[in-house]
Structure formats: C-alpha cells, structure tokens
C-alpha cells in the first residue's frame, strides 16, 4: 500500500512539473525560438565562414596557389554575401 502511495505521489509530482507550459496563462516562448529558415541560413553562413578560413589556411600552408586561392576565395565570399543578403531579407520580412 505504501509503495502504491509513493508511486502515485511521484507521478503526481511529475504531472505537476510537466504541465507547467500547458496551464492556462502559461507564458509562450514561441517568439524566443529561432526561425528554422534563419537557423538554416545561420548554419550555412557559419559553414561558409569556415570554408573561407580553411581556404586561407590552405593558402598559407601552400596547398593552394595564390591564383587558385583568389578564385576560390572570391567565389566563397560571393556565396557568403548571398547568405548575408538572405538573412537581411528574412529580417526585413519579419
């Protein structure tokens, strides 16, 4: 009997804790959550920055010639700018 009461008590505590966001008047966190589109763009931006850094490191280490690096760097920067523009456009839309 004691064991059953204890189990019910623990389940009641769990119910109390997990139901907080479901109670009427609970504060919505919706606005604080990152927009998935924005998250995707941020991930792409970070990856692009990493690629730019990698290319620089590869040039410094002699794996890319100055010409190859300039071409790759310009392309990567163009793509990065496109991502930044997309982020700006998304911000403006919101």
């Amino acid at each position, binding site marked *: 009997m004691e064991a059953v009461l*204890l189990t019910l008590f623990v389940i009641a*505590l769990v119910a109390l804790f*997990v139901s907080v966001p479901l109670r009427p008047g609970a504060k919505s966190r919706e606005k604080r959550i990152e927009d998935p589109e924005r998250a995707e763009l941020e991930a792409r931006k970070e990856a692009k*920055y990493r690629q730019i850094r*990698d290319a620089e490191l590869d040039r410094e280490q002699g794996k890319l*010639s100055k010409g190859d690096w300039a071409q790759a760097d310009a392309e990567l920067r163009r793509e990065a*700018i496109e991502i930044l523009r997309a982020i700006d456009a998304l911000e403006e839309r919101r």
Partner: protein
Amino acid sequence: MSNFSIDFGLACLIGALVAFAFGAGAGIYGGVKADRRWVDSARRAVYAAAALLIVCVVTLEAAFLRSDFSLALVADHSSTTTPTLYKMTALWGSQGGSLLLWAFVLSIASSGVLFATRHKHREVVPWATAVLCGLGLFFCGLMLLAGGANPFERMSPVPAEGLGLNPLLRHPAMAIHPPMLYSGYVLFSIPFAFAIGALIARRLDASWIRSTRRFALLAWIFLSVGILLGAGWSYVELGWGGYWGWDPVENASLMPWLVGTAFLHSIMVQERRGMLKVWNVSLICATFALALLGTFLVRSGILQSIHAFGESTVGTPLLVLIAVVLGGSTALIVSRLSYLRAERRVESMASREAVFLVNNVLLVGLAVIVFWGTFFPLISEAITGERSTLAGPWFDRYVTPLAILLVLFTGIGPLLAWRKISAGRALRLFGPPTAFAGVVLVALLLFTESASEPGALVMFTCAAFAFAGLVGEFVRGASAQRALTGGAWPVSLGRVVVRNRRRYGGYIVHTGIILAFVSIAASSSFQDSDDVRMLPGDSTNVGDYELTYVQPTAFRDLEEQRLTFGSIVEVRRDGELVETLTPSRNYYSSSSAGTVRSFFEGEATSEVGRSGGAGEDFWTAMRPDLTEPAIDELITTSDREIDRLLIPEELPDPSTPGGQAEMRQIAEARSVAQGQIITELQERFEDGQIPVDFRINVNPLVIWIWIGGAIAVIGGLIAAWPTPPARRRRVSDVYAARLAKDLNRA
C-alpha cells in the same frame, strides 16, 4: 528505512517510465500540431525523468554501500567483503543495473541537448524529443517488465551474505569500462534522434549536424576510452596473452566506433560542401543500430563471449528495437530522398572531400567485415544447421589490407585542400612525407627483420608517410602563424591549434590512431611467444629473455573465498636479472556446486606478471595443472568421500525448524571437510608437486596502443572543445565587415 528507500526508488523508476511515455506522446502531438507548449512540456518530462533516474541510481548505490541484501541486485552482485570501489561499480555488473545505466545516461544527455536547443530547431526538436523519450520508455519498460531486469527486485528470505561481484569484474579498468562504453553507445542516440527529427520535419540542411556534432564526438571519445580500457583489462586480467581476440563483445564495440568515425568525417563534407546527405543520415542510423547491437550482444548471451555477463531475458525486446530503428529509419530516408539531394559534386579526386569519401568506404568496409565475422556463427547455423566460428586469422586476413589503406589515406587527406589541388602543389606537398616513408622503408629492410612480415612492413611505411604528413601540417601551420604574429615556435603552434581546434584536434587524433596501428602491427607480427610446463627450478628462453620458475606460492583469502596459486619467477636478459615477477591464478568458491572441484571449475582470474617499457613488454601468466592424475584423483576421491560421510541417505526436511538446523550442520561440516582438502592442495602446490603451465610473450611496442589511444582521446577533446562565443562573434563580425565592404564595392 531500507524498505522505504527501495519503495521510493521503484516509485521513481515507474515515475521515469511515465515521464518518458508522456514526453514521447507530447513530443509527437507538439510536432504534429506545431504547438510549442506541448514540446516544452515534453522537454520538461525529460528533465523529470533524468531527476528521477538520478534518485534511482543514488538509492541503489546507497543499498550497495550498506550491503542491503534485501535487494536481489545487491545480494547477487556484492557481499559484505566486496571492496567499496567495486560495491559502487557493481551496479552495472548486472542486467537491471546496466539497463538503468543506459536509461540514466540517456536522460542526462537528452536533458543536456534539449536544454541547449530549447530556442532552436522549432520543427526538428519535437520529433527528436519523441525519439529520445521513446528510447527512455523502452529501457525503463524493459527494467520493469522483462523478467529479472528490475533493479529494485527484493530477496525473500534476506540472505545473511551476498554472492559477491563476478571476479572478472574486480579490476579498476572494469570499474569504469562499462559506463564509458555505454555512454558512447547512448550519446550516439542524440545525433540519431535529431537525424530522425530532421527527416520527419524535412529540415535536412546541416543545422541538425551543427547542434549534435559535439555529442557525436563525445560519443566517439567515450567509446574509444571504453574500448581501450576493455583491451587493457583483457591484456592484464584474462591471462590468454592478448588485448584483442575478435571476441563478439569486443567486435560489438568496434562496429559503432568504425561507423561513427566515418560519420564524424562525412558530416564535415556536408557542412562545407552540402554533399553526402543520404550517406550521413544512413551512417548515424547505422551507428545507433550498431550501438544497440552492442548492448544486445553483451546482454543477450546469443554469442559465446568471455565478456558477456548477461542472461537472455532482454535479448528479444532489444532485437525488436534494433529492427524498428533500422526499418523505420530506412523507410524515412527512402521517403525523403528528394530532400537529400547533394548541393554539389566532388570536383576532383585530388581533394580532401574525395579522400574523406574513400576513408568512409574503408571504415564502413571494416565494419562490414567485423559484422560478418561476428555473426558468422549464427549465419552458418541458419544455413547449414551447424555453428561455425571465424577465428582471429580470418579477421586479420581481411582487416589488415583495409587498415593499411586507412592509414595511408589518413596521411593523404590532410595534405589536400578542399575542392581541388593542382598537380604541381600536390607533388610538392607529397614529396617530404614520401621521402621520409622511403627512408623508413629502407632502414627497416636494412636493420630489422620486418621483411619477414610484409603486412607489418607496408603498415610501418604507410604510417611513416602519414606521420610525416601530419608533422608537416603542424610545422606549416605554426610557420604561417609565426609569419603573421611573430613569437616563439611553441607559442605559434599553440595558437594555430587553439584557433583551428577542429582541424588540429583531428590531426592529433590521427597521430594517436597511427601510433596505435603501428603498435598493433608490431606487437602482433613480431611477438615472441611460448607455452611451457614447468616445475620449481626450471628455466626457459623466450626471445632474448630467460625465465626461471623459482618458487610456488599459495594464499587463501577466507573473506573473499579465494584461493591463489602463485609463483615467483626471475626474468634475465644476457644473464642479468631484469625483474622478479609474481604471476598468479585466483580461484573463487562457487556457491552453486558445493564441491572441491567446483572451486576450480568456477570463475578464475589471472594476475599476469609484466615487465616492460616503451620498446617491449615481457608478459607472463600461469595456470597450475590440476588435471595432473594424482591431483585429479585427490579431488575426485575427496568429493566422493565427503558426500558419503556427510550427506545422509534421507535428507532432512528444510521446511521444519529442526530440518533447517540439520541442513545447516551438514553444510558447515562439508565446508570444514572441503577446507581441509583445499589446505592439502595448497601444501602440495607449495611443495612443488603441481606443475604449472606458463604462457610467456614478449610483445614489442605494445604499450603504444594505449599511449596512441590516449593521444587520440586528447585530440578528440580538443576538437570537441567549444569555441568561446565572444571569439566566434568577433571573427564573424570581422568577416561580416569585410564582406559588407565587398558588397558595397559590387
């Protein structure tokens, strides 16, 4: 108090099950309805489950520490004489305890990742939460519903003494090996859950990888540590002379490690080049399924293994879960193929991504070989009706060529740039490592006997190439940093590593792995080994060493019910005494059989004698030959005589108080009589009447397996270490400013 704490622990376990069940439902509902409130509620359910499972673990640990034998788990896996460290670690020596460990680590890791992503991945997190809760529900359900898996099961009547921990587990490495291995297995569930979430939500860009990459890396680190500790335990405790025997349970931990390593490499290609999306989700699903398979193999007892400590009650449910994971993820991947198209193609085979692809194929190929070899007994039984096993030489034949290629490509990858590299630059970069490998090859051929082992010779040469390539990377990186900021070499090297943790952390991992591969090749190809039967005073030669069996020793530990037959051996090299070693064999009283013979047929452990350094390791283990006719006859006659004298023709009725007392008297009398026989055996051994079988190995470079492994783990930690947010922001701002400048110009 004891009853209350057990009841409370069980209530918490049931509470965790309810929390996981609610979390799974709330996650799915929140995902379907896009209702954040339900997703938040599901996340809270995971936190609640984690808190309750902490209480469960603490309750059980307290029960072990105070030897509360009213719990079956405590009575079956510890005793009042079990040392405190092993009392604390006995929890995961049992089926229920190891399942609790699974659920506990899962709940903690899930809480961590869900807290870190509470403001991110709106569409993916609900499904990932549901998957994680589903897994938690499965393991809690297994504990409560599968027979013999409930860690809070009671004993009635309560025994006065516990059975003690399995002697094989009484080793420091085994105290931390299972939690390391399980943490590795469990942490792979995080990227798996997010991959499933991304597939369901059709959000298959690299953002789910970005949030879970660190968990995958931590899983890899834990699994690596677990494998290294397991190999170390095998080397010093099992007494067969090796660190890896291609045992099913060893293989079970290697398979997710191999596929997980492939995943960690291929996600870099997706992050940077938008390629290999199908491959990545497939790899993480396979890795997680293999992690479950590892748990299944340890716990099901389906394949015979020296490491399988479990019974078979949870085998079928685990197999069903593996089938659900494989079937469900395959169906999801197939249904989302149109979302998984690569954004680019490999531009050149002379590029880092192309080499990553080759390394991936090699790693997965190795996993396939290990899988086939591990499950061949079951496959052969299904086809022919007879169970056949594939032994070490079969694995060596197929694994060695792939391992050599893996080391070679580990050296090639870092030398190449992403996208492509010109032929001239490639030649310049490949020159020094190729020359170094050539010099090493010539030196090996001229000054060593490596030519007799072509596989090892090729491995050493490829490793020299890879090692020189990696050293070159560090030198070039530090030079470039020094050219920019000046300062001393070590400072520049430190700076370049800190600024590029992922890249240089990875290179450190590669360095460690190469060291480990070289030592595996050396220790397995150039081992000197001998099995010799000796009596006190005998000597034998192995390699450059002479071993003399000086004196037998014997010791009885009544508290631990252990009999130790040991030996004092002297090891000489060129006539000079190198070391005096004391290998021994421990025998533990088996409570089930109750005969003198059972003492020697139950669990036994070896304490090996070792002397060595960086160059080679002298290793010896001993086993007294108790099948010697005179000894065998003594044991057989004694057991027969004890039975004849002490067991009455009609056994007393144990259900009556008088019968119980009589049974106790018989047991005590048997124990005294058996003790006398054991003492006689002990004396005969000390007199040198029992011959001893010694296994003696001289293993070159073996210690470097663990040194290399430790370097790899340190490299993994460097790669996983978070970049400080301030620095990340500053770098981003710098690039943003430069890019904005370009934008204005355009």
